[in-house]
């Protein structure tokens, strides 16, 4: 990176941290530290909710996903607006009126202490695991650019987040998120404009869309039904709704964002904003990946985007053959792409059909060579099931973006990571302090004691996230890994909140055993079936409710009914 890129990167990061700390002045009580004294306006909560969900993984992995598999991933978000409407109508007013710090605190009001404790522990397991992954993503960025060890980057990022989160609490997190989202939008627009400008002069924007579409990179909607397919219209609408109900309704990292609202109306507006803005934003990010694919139709990309893996296979005796084959396949696809555009402009449908077949065949040839190269990584001692999806966008950014813009896009990655990580650490600390420490260890202490305990809990979870981030490399496509981890636990949480809101007759013991049964079935599905992870939320939720209702009736409490 050039000097200007470094100035842009560190200037942006310093301004985010400074602004967050400046806006968080006066966070000197537990209520202000954990809930911002319930003073936040809707737009700050809305952007904070969006920033917490959009980690660096979103930009690194989603763009790579559309490069190799098209835009089908956008369907994953089709359930989000439905979930937001349900949450606005049910959960938001209940949590506000219950005046709770955490979602799980409400479970004790509704059920009993053991149900609250189990839900809190499930949240700590799930969010604690993904906190490490959130920090791992930018480590890829810097290790790719600077050759720094992942662990150094992870520690630097983690320590920065710990600093402003432990000092400023949720207010610092929220106001930093606002600034981070502004930078993220700016970086995304700049990336798309740049990739389009870099296309050959003979390729217009409609031509680029046509080429991406012909290669299946603009397939945003697939209507077939398949239990094992992760991204279809149906898994998005049904599975996605359940996942987002769990995420925004039962996950403290999100619930805490809208609990800081000054009124029910403000909290609802923050969720409605996300219901409207999230799908277009994801579509936009995926579209950038599709345009990067088109760019690489005309500029030969490396056979593998991860530099370390490429260096490894270059020592192999088979590399020369793979590289020659790749260069020939690339030239063939480039010519096929130009000929396809010519046929398209000539409005000759028979010729166009032939050229489409040739273009797709050339794309398959490229994919086959890349598969050979990936296998070569394995045979030369690299990781099994090697995938370089997460390196595609970064490789493009560092090679082809103009000076200054590289620093901005890298700052976007860091901003996104810091916002997601800060939200997670802040919520983990809140649950540890409110649902466990204050509930079971120190029931009566001063406000100052709990404030300090919250700060120490923040430092602890930050350190834990840094330590566990080292496992990220083993989890393949990061965006999918994060969602799979979440889905292992969310169904049970959603089930118990469903019982709390809609089945008035169910009591604590039934809810508690229902949650355990839900977790058992979801883990069984994960280890012993090929069912896509989006369905785990539906299955887990259904098992919790069915088990709790069965126990309620079996123990003679026949008051269970849908409220």
């Amino acid at each position, binding site marked *: 990176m050039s000097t200007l890129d470094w100035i842009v990167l560190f200037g942006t990061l310093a301004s985010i941290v400074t602004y967050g700390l400046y806006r968080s002045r006066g966070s000197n009580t537990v209520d202000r530290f954990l809930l911002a004294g319930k003073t936040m306006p809707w737009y700050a909560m809305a952007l904070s909710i969006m920033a917490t969900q959009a980690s660096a993984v979103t930009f690194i992995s989603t763009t790579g996903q559309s490069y190799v598999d098209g835009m089908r991933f956008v369907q994953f978000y*089709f359930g989000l*607006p439905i979930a937001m*409407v349900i949450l606005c109508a049910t959960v938001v*007013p209940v949590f506000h009126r219950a005046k709770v710090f955490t979602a799980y605190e409400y479970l004790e009001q509704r059920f009993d202490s053991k149900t609250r404790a189990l839900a809190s522990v499930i949240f700590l397991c799930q969010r604690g695991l993904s906190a490490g992954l959130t920090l791992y993503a930018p480590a890829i960025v810097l290790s790719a650019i600077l050759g720094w060890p992942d662990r150094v980057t992870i520690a630097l990022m983690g320590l920065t987040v710990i600093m402003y989160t432990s000092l400023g609490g949720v207010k610092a997190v929220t106001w930093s998120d606002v600034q981070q989202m502004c930078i993220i939008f700016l970086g995304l627009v700049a990336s798309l404009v740049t990739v389009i400008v870099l296309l050959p002069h003979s390729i217009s924007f409609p031509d680029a869309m*046509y080429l991406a579409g012909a290669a299946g990179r603009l397939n945003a909607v697939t209507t077939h039904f398949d239990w094992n397919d992760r991204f279809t219209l149906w898994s998005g609408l049904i599975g996605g709704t359940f996942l987002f109900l769990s995420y925004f309704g039962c996950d403290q990292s999100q619930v805490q964002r809208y609990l800081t609202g000054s009124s029910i109306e403000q909290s609802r507006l923050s969720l409605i904003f996300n219901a409207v803005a999230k799908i277009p934003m994801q579509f936009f990010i995926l579209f950038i990946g599709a345009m990067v694919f088109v760019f690489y139709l005309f500029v030969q990309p490396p056979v593998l985007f991860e530099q370390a893996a490429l260096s490894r296979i270059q020592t192999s005796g088979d590399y020369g053959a793979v590289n020659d084959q790749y260069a020939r396949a690339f030239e063939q696809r480039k010519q096929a792409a130009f000929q396809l555009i010519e046929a398209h402009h000539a409005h000759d449908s028979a010729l166009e059909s032939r050229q489409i077949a040739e273009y797709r065949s050339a794309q398959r040839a490229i994919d086959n060579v890349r598969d050979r190269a990936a296998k070569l990584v394995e045979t030369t001692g690299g990781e099994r099931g090697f995938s370089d999806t997460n390196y595609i966008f970064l490789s493009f950014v560092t090679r082809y973006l103009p000076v200054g813009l590289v620093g901005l896009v890298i700052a976007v990655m860091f901003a996104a990571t810091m916002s997601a990580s800060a939200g997670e650490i802040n919520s983990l600390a809140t649950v540890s302090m409110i649902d466990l420490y204050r509930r079971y260890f120190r029931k009566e202490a001063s406000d100052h004691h709990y404030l300090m305990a919250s700060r120490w809990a923040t430092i602890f979870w930050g350190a834990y996230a840094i330590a566990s981030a080292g496992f990220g490399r083993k989890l393949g496509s990061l965006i999918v890994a994060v969602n799979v981890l979440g889905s292992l636990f969310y169904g049970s949480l959603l089930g118990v909140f469903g019982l709390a809101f809609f089945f008035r007759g169910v009591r604590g013991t039934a809810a508690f055993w229902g949650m355990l049964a839900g977790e058992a079935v979801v883990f069984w599905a994960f280890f012993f079936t090929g069912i896509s992870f989006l369905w785990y939320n539906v299955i887990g939720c259904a098992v919790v409710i069915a088990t709790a209702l069965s126990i309620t009736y079996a123990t003679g409490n026949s008051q269970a009914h849908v409220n």
Partner: protein
Amino acid sequence: MPGPRDIPDEPPPFLGTWPRVYLAVLIYLGLIIAICYGFTRALE
């Protein structure tokens, strides 16, 4: 536990009532899916 009237349920700043806002969001979702479907069909 505070009573339900402790925190009033204010109307939204647009469309008059919350159910109307929710309906508008669901119609918007339908439109988005239709646009994405058309986009896919037109360019595949």
